[in-house]
């Protein structure tokens, strides 16, 4: 029984970790693209 419970929660934990890693990656990319746009918008 405990194996089943552990396996179930392990799957949830792995997904949450993957979700948070993806979140961090997306936010970094958003910052990078925002800076890129700001640089392009500045008058030369």
């Amino acid at each position, binding site marked *: 029984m405990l194996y*089943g419970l552990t396996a179930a929660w392990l799957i*949830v934990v792995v997904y949450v970790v993957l979700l948070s890693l993806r*979140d961090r990656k*997306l936010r970094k990319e958003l910052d990078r*693209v925002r800076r890129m*746009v700001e640089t392009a918008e500045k008058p030369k």
Partner: protein
Amino acid sequence: MRTKIILLLAIVSAALLAWNLQTIFLRLPDELNQGAIYRIIYFHVPANILGMTGFGLGMLFSLVYLVTKNLRYDALAESLTEVALVFASIGLVTGSIWARIIWGVWWAWDVRLTSWLVCWLIFAGYLMLRHAIEEPIQRAKFAAVVSVFGTVDAYISYKSIEWYRNQHPAPVLSIRNGGGMAPGMEAPIWWNLLALTCLAAILVIVRMRQQGIAREIDTLRRTAHSY
């Protein structure tokens, strides 16, 4: 506002799970034939219900996208399908652990198990397909078609324990006229379903927020390329 909803859902989910765990482990007796292992049903059944419901809702929002052409519905369909796949995985793994102890084998190729595995593979393919197609409109259309096929298979899997003689147990829940559980043993399944539904809702909200960020990145990239 969204953070407050997530917090509220997390509190409700944690409280229900804590209450249920003490009910399942400390208050309910062992089942006569299966012993303690029957308790796996309290996670196996709610996880599979969430998997099937999530796939069905995902298909529904894919169809809404096809009608409205609003990509937010496609994003919602993807979020629901991804979270449903997590719960379907829990259903498959917990079922397999139960089978090893009760049947003596990890897996049996009966209609229920096979159709559910095929469904899992179809939706895993659905997510891979989405990663492979760059163009958002084409991606949403192809994904909607795959979602329809997958949901048909999910329905076949759902009904298979009524239609066919399987190694998998016949329906036990009272709403499916099963009646295979003693009074008092069924209620924790529904409470666990509610707790896991709150957890699934949190995951869908977080995934939707990520989809919003991804859309913003796409818009900014297009703006940058137009300079």
